[in-house]
């Protein structure tokens, strides 16, 4: 069994406008020490998936069905049904979490050292002094300058990049088996982004931690991930080992995403490609394939009876070993259809 596995997770918000299924049947798995990249456009449900893992989704959100399995010495445990007290031992202990917003995710009234030490004290029977020593060690590990001095500083005295390092130190303080990093670099500027990603990769190699790296940046995925899952409108639409996905993307959405990447080689000259249309809001997911209103194939494949894409919803099919695609035309898709990607001048 893999270290960690999500099966058919459905998380919905019950708002005054009705049920909003932000995550609608997501499945993925991560092996020990591996990195899985979860990519998708803004609003497709990545953060909600991440929050669901540690049951941090706030009301009116609720995990409705599915299981989240974490391999343990006594066999896999399901985090969805785990009693609160046991779940608390997993939070921060076996699964660490890094959030999107380093500026607001640290408590402003405690020193950095206290906040890391708290994570240690919550999971290990040790003295305050030992916890503090561990905090210092972690700050060194995440390569924060002047760690002794920073230990007694407050979050507002640190820059965004430094705060994200503190968050990473906190998430890794108890040597978790898995770190969920929800867009850890989105709020940071580019040079800092690269440093943080380097740091994460380095720590993974040294500590053997598995990482679920959430991002909307395919470049980041290409550099750091072993495997990639592409998410669209609350569902995984394609999953494959990273090299396979980049070499042979199959789902029209993935193809669009890849084409939308700015190409460093064709600096400036080439037009930037974008996927036409927008991610639908969860209240208005299309029936059938959720991507079909934006998909060139669906338009090209339209028959007098209407495209097959409108119903029923496609399943996630394994088209080659380890490569899953959710598309009715998965087998026939080899090359990007000429109409699949519209070209725009950005």
């Amino acid at each position, binding site marked *: 069994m893999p270290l960690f596995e999500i099966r058919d997770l459905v998380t919905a918000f019950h708002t005054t406008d009705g049920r909003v299924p932000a995550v609608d049947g997501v499945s993925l798995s991560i092996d020990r020490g591996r990195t899985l990249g979860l990519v998708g456009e803004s609003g497709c449900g990545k953060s909600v998936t991440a929050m669901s893992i540690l049951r941090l989704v706030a009301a009116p959100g609720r995990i409705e069905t599915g299981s989240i399995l974490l391999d343990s010495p006594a066999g896999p445990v399901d985090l969805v049904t785990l009693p609160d007290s046991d779940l608390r031992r997993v*939070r921060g202990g076996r699964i*660490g979490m890094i959030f999107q917003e380093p500026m607001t995710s640290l408590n402003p009234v405690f020193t950095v050292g206290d906040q890391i030490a708290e994570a240690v004290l919550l999971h290990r029977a040790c003295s305050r002094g030992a916890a503090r020593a561990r905090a210092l060690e972690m700050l060194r590990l995440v390569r924060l300058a002047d760690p002794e001095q920073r230990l007694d500083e407050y979050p*507002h005295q640190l820059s965004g990049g430094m705060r994200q390092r503190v968050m990473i130190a906190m998430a890794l303080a108890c040597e978790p088996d898995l770190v969920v990093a929800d867009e850890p670099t989105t709020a940071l500027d580019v040079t800092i982004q690269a440093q943080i990603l380097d740091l994460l990769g380095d720590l993974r190699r040294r500590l053997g931690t598995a990482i679920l790296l959430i991002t909307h940046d395919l470049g980041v995925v290409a550099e750091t991930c072993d495997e990639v899952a592409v998410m669209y409108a609350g569902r995984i639409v394609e999953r494959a080992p990273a090299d396979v996905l980049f070499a042979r993307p199959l789902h029209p959405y993935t193809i669009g995403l890849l084409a939308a990447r700015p190409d460093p080689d064709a600096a400036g000259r080439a037009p930037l490609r974008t996927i036409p249309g927008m991610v639908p809001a969860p209240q208005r997911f299309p029936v059938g394939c959720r991507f079909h209103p934006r998909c060139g194939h669906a338009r090209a494949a339209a028959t007098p009876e209407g495209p097959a894409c409108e119903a029923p919803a496609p399943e996630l099919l394994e088209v080659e070993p380890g490569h899953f695609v959710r598309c009715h035309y998965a087998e026939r898709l080899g090359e990007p259809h000429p109409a699949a990607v519209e070209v725009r001048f950005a």
Partner: protein
Amino acid sequence: MATYLLRRLLLGCVTLVAITVVVYGLARSMPGNPLTAQLGEDPSRKVSAADYERMQRAYGLDRSWPEGYLQWAGNLLRGDLGRSITRKQPVTTLIGERLGPTLLVSGTAFLLIWMLAIPLGLYASARAGTVDERGVSLVLYALYSFPTFVAALLLQIVFSVWSKGTAWELPLFGMTSLPPDAPLAARIVDVARHMILPVVCQTYVSLAYDTRFIRATMAEAVRQDYIRTARAKGAGPWRVLVRHAFRNTLIPLVTLLGLSLPALVGGSIIIEQIFTWPGMGRLFFESIRERDYPTIMGLTLMFSVLTLLGQLLADLLYSAVDPRVSVE
């Protein structure tokens, strides 16, 4: 820090001068004087014309009010708050006498308020959205809107008039009904019984207000990202609520604390008036009615100094609980 305090002190002095000028002018413009104002039933407070003459000269009341103010301020700088005209005592002695009873009631109320408001506020936040929390919130809201003087009268009716002769009967007025030579234990019990109704009246409104305040700031705090971080670390619900959220609500709370300083020492005019409690609020009320200028001014000065001190205290505490803020 020292320059900050010095600046605050100077600004405070400017404010104090302005306030005392305004109140002195108002007081002197009130029609009548201590001779003509009706002084109630107490014959010892009748001012003789000779007494009044002497006082008038001492405080410049025979001159225009700006001159009178200067004289009052001059005396103040020499450390002399003057003597009450109608009570024939130094104003400082008078305030000293009234301070104890007021502190007894408002101090007790103050302790009760904070001892109850914090757990109640935390309880309400912990159980946010449940039926019992909504019930508690609604009751608190109703209490907050309930006028003190109505509550005081109702309590007097229930515990003094309707309970006459039963074990529930509580004294209606004053601070004690025993002679000063009664045994100490009996006097303590007696004063405690007299205190109950005023304390209840002074407690409930602030209790309701503060609890709602804590509840509201907590609701704000638990929405913050760092709460999610704390939960992701594995902190339990109470730890999240008390250590992480409540610690942050202390920041607005100390402001509230500082601003309640003048009320703590000044007492409540209405409550002391209803229960004829011999405290500061009542002294203030009576001195206005009696046109007892030195007492009015002494009390005004005290209130203003306390208000300014309370604000300073709030700002200092603020920088103590919020690491992001430092006094310039």
